[in-house]
């Protein structure tokens, strides 16, 4: 603590809650990445760009509707679908021809996609900083243990588990979810029993990108939306997936919590080097458990 203020229980609990709410956004983005990684076995480098496009699209949609509460809700619904549409076009026109190729080539393709999407975003939206107002009911803050916490963070704390449960229900209870999980384990066998694996892959890719867009739309009221936010998120997302266990959805949750909480406690204890803390946590986890906290699907 640089200003000599004592660390109170209230400060610790607020830091914890802010860290968890940050972790929820990371989880939503990372679970998409993890899903693609699990089913398609591709580290999708363009995931961060789709997240950025989600945030920019949310800004455009909410200003289109006057920046009021209704604009925010419409943005939250339509921005992820826009991102999903972009990924559908990219997947069906180019990506689906490459599934037989070597893995490094797929990685290279997603990198090329990241470069293209990054520049297209710059062409369409420009390099200005933008920000979105949260809707009226989430403005202001509530008091927990005597310290204020923004209402929007509470909203994030609620929506994170909803997405997690939704994804879990989808992948373990619906037919297409089960097919996607089966394709992750043995794609030849799934193809052999007469399922069009190419479309399963396309579906998984689009779902993953949808989650990236959702994460971008959700994060837009809390930060300033600008070019370059893709570079930061993608590296964090990759590290989270790795420490959680590749392709494991609950692993993405565990990894996000580790990342978010160490980051916010870093801000509390040593603000200058706050960005170092999550990386240290990743190094500790990987030296202790080289293949991640939970079982990976690979």
């Amino acid at each position, binding site marked *: 603590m640089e200003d000599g203020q004592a660390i109170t229980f209230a400060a610790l609990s607020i830091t914890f809650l802010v860290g968890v709410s940050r972790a929820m956004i990371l989880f939503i983005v990372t679970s998409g990445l993890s899903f693609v990684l699990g089913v398609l076995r591709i580290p999708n480098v363009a995931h961060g760009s789709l997240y950025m496009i989600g945030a920019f699209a949310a800004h455009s949609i909410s200003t289109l509707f006057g920046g009021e509460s209704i604009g925010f809700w419409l943005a939250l619904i339509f921005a992820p679908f826009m991102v999903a549409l972009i990924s559908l076009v990219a997947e069906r026109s180019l990506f689906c021809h490459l599934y037989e190729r070597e893995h490094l080539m797929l990685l290279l393709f997603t990198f090329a996609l990241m470069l293209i999407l990054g520049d*297209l975003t710059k062409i369409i939206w420009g390099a200005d900083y933008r920000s979105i107002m949260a809707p009226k009911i989430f403005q202001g803050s509530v008091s927990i243990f005597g310290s204020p916490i923004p209402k929007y963070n509470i909203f994030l704390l609620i929506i994170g588990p909803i997405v997690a449960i939704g994804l879990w229900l989808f992948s373990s209870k619906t037919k297409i979810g089960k097919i996607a999980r089966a394709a992750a384990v043995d794609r030849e066998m799934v193809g052999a029993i007469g399922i069009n694996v190419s479309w399963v892959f396309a579906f998984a890719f689009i779902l993953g990108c949808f989650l990236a867009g959702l994460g971008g739309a959700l994060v837009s009221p809390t930060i300033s939306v600008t070019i370059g936010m893709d570079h930061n998120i993608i590296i964090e997302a990759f590290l989270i997936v790795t420490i959680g266990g590749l392709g494991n959805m609950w692993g993405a949750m565990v990894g996000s919590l580790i990342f978010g909480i160490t980051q916010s406690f870093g801000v509390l204890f040593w603000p200058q*080097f706050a960005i*170092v803390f999550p*990386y240290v946590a990743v190094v500790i986890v*990987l030296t202790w458990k080289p293949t991640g906290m939970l079982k990976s699907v690979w």
Partner: protein
Amino acid sequence: MFSEMIRQKSFCVSAVIFVILLLAPSFLPRFYTYFLTIIFVTALLAMSLNLCVGHGMLFQFHHGVFYGVGAYTAGLLLAKTSVPWWIAFIAGSLAAALAGLLIGMFCIRLNRLYFGMLQISLGSLIWAIAFRWYSLTGGDDGIHGIPIPDFISSTTSAYYFVLIVLGICLILLYLIIKSPFGSTLQAIRDNPERCAAVGINVRRHQLTAIVIATFFGGVAGVLFVVMEGSIFPDLLFWVLSLEIFIMCLLGGWFTFAGPILGAAIIVSLRTFVGTYTEYWTLILGIILILLIFFLPEGIMGYNYIEKFRAWSKRNAAERFE
């Protein structure tokens, strides 16, 4: 080994290219001399990475960090202390090799993608420290105007210095790849299980490859300081690392000289397309996609002669029918 090298045709070609490059500054404008210097530095960096990626099949995802460590060590020693220039240069290269050894010891126990991810994490740690430690490294501004010794401070003399160091490093890299160690490394790339079975210490060979590669990466970093006279945290950022990785794949990662070509292409694109439009990465992305679809082995990896023969044979057969 030397006599064998001299007999080869490719050696004569590279000797001719070297002589042309030695004469180049006398007839090229100053900007192009500088431009060639950038290509040389980047080429050395890509070549050093390719020892790991192409010859060792190690997913060295964050090679840029060693480039940055070399540059930062040399730059800080030159700017903040009064040690002689040659000590700073050697210390820069050795610091990169040391960082490579430390990071490599952590990463080498993991396989493939996990290896790359742990390396990105450790590398980002170094980046974050350099980015935030304002009192030592100047934070995100970096340090500019580093005092470079007089005999290599002009554009032309820096060009010669970089060219000569590059030449020496390339010969060393060539000898390493052609040595028994290089062959063992390639054997490990092709079949690690069998190599382990015949008694080769796989991990130790891979670690040695990483240390050698990071040493040359550090040399490239030192050359960057000679060329630019400044250091900044972008040298350690992962985007640069991915760019170097692309250079290896682009030029042909199973060939010796491929990365040089890849580096030349990407640096030229950035310089020339970058003067016309700020959206040069868009062009780079489109070129990459074309490359993935049509030249998956890289530009130099594609066997043109073989393909041309097959094509002309097919044409001839069709004509006779």
